[in-house]
């Protein structure tokens, strides 16, 4: 006769037997909520294309994630929303006219290669969305740097470049700066009325989302402050050294700086873990961004995504260097 186990087995686990209730999916959901204002701004400025790209990227990311987990015979992780966050962030880093198939290709690379190859969320050394973008930028350079005309300059000066690339191209040919940051121009830049990737144009919308993340304590101030602070300091020094320098607020409001500083460089998985490490990370991002932006010979007008990726590579080294001493221990 076989022994019978009692009907109602008690659950036994290690302490603690209570939990704060936080979860990965809650964190990712907060990031998605924080991206809503930027999405609204994208829809306002780019219309149907913003919806199309975001939908395509999110769908492609989710499907890729599902397929990868299936192929690896592991538990499904769509429910933690991390793939959705990657999809939205990737979409926000794409120009409005990018063909859908390219967006899909970028999403597949982001999830399949940059994330699931390493075993999924938590193991990836690089930010998947940024890998997707860098992949597209290098493989489909033309499409990734084509911008539909918008009215961010005066209507008679319609241009098909982002402010950053316009500045860089002009300086490369030796011409003076193409425009000055007047009051209305700054306002346009701030609300997002300019050419650029769909989610990065509106600093105002991103700041609203960032405030939500800070209040919800999903992100800490360290990376954004160090990142943006470094950009400001570098920008000020650059202005005093060079006659052909754009003002600091141009650098703050153009390109992917705001989106990068608040949403990409704060990705927990790929950034250092200690506060000091995060500050070093932010400073590194700021420096590299400005080097790529201001060295005229460079191939790329904006350096935010590459700067963050390079600093992602440095993250293990920063973690190694920034260990802290426990309570009661001395050097």
């Amino acid at each position: 006769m076989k022994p019978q186990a009692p009907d109602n087995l008690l659950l036994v686990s290690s302490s603690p037997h209570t939990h704060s209730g936080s979860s990965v999916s809650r964190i990712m959901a907060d990031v998605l909520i924080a991206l809503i204002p930027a999405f609204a701004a994208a829809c306002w400025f780019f219309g149907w294309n913003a919806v199309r790209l975001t939908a395509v990227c999110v769908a492609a990311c989710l499907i890729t994630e599902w397929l990868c987990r299936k192929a690896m015979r592991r538990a499904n992780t769509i429910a933690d929303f991390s793939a959705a966050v990657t999809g939205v962030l990737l979409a926000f880093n794409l120009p409005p006219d990018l063909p859908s198939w390219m967006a899909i290709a970028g999403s597949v690379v982001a999830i399949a290669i940059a994330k699931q190859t390493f075993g999924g969320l938590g193991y990836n050394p690089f930010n998947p969305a940024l890998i997707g973008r860098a992949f597209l930028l290098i493989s489909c350079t033309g499409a990734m740097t084509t911008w539909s005309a918008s009215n961010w300059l005066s209507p008679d000066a319609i241009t098909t470049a982002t402010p950053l690339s316009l500045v860089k191209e002009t300086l490369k040919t030796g011409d003076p700066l193409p425009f000055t940051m007047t009051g209305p121009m700054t306002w346009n830049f701030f609300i997002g009325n300019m050419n650029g990737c769909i989610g990065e144009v509106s600093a105002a919308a991103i700041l609203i989302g960032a405030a939500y993340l800070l209040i919800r304590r999903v992100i800490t101030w360290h990376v954004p402050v160090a990142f943006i602070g470094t950009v400001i300091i570098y920008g000020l020094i650059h202005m005093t050294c060079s006659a052909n320098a754009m003002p600091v607020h141009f650098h703050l409001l153009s390109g992917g700086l705001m989106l990068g500083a608040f949403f990409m460089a704060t990705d927990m998985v790929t950034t250092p873990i200690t506060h000091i490490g995060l500050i070093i990370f932010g400073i590194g991002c700021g420096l590299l961004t400005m080097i790529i932006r201001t060295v005229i010979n460079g191939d790329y007008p904006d350096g935010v995504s590459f700067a963050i990726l390079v600093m992602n590579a440095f993250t293990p080294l920063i973690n190694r260097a920034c260990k802290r001493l426990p309570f009661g221990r001395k050097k």
Partner: protein
Amino acid sequence: MEYVLLIIGAVLVNNFVLNRFLGICPFLGVSKQMSTAIGMSGAVIFVMGMAAAVTWCIQDWLLAPLNLEYLQTTAFILLIAAFVQLVDIVMKRFLPALHGALGIFLPLITTNCAVLGVAVMNVQNESSLGISVLFSVAAAVGFAFALIIFAGLREKIERANPPRAFRGVAIALVTAGLLSLSFMGFSGLVK
């Protein structure tokens, strides 16, 4: 300023490993541990600097005057091979711990295309002896830079949980590819 640009160019922009894809074998081989990566970095910087000097002397004092430039590759390989063997013997005698740590990879520098590559590049650029050595050392520092970053990353991915098919070198190669992708952002900064 020219020298600074030369160094930045060799380290960041035209990095031997991440941009020119030279020296991949030791890059993958010794990056598993930070300690060996640092040891290897030292060895490569030393060997590349010295090899540049030796090959420059052979090129400018022997091959060029005798119009034997077509022997360049053969002569360089011969010299570098002998030189690395010498370093190996000296290190085994005087730095046995480092020698043990580097293991097979020190002799592998012999056939490392990065060493030959830098020597050939110096000839192509018609650099002076000083510039040749500086460029070689900078290139080696770039190699070391990439190697150490990669060692840090590998310690992280060592703890990752890739699917069975990607375990080991496969995931290391994927990571190296992504690292290279990240460094593409520097392209064009320095010619």
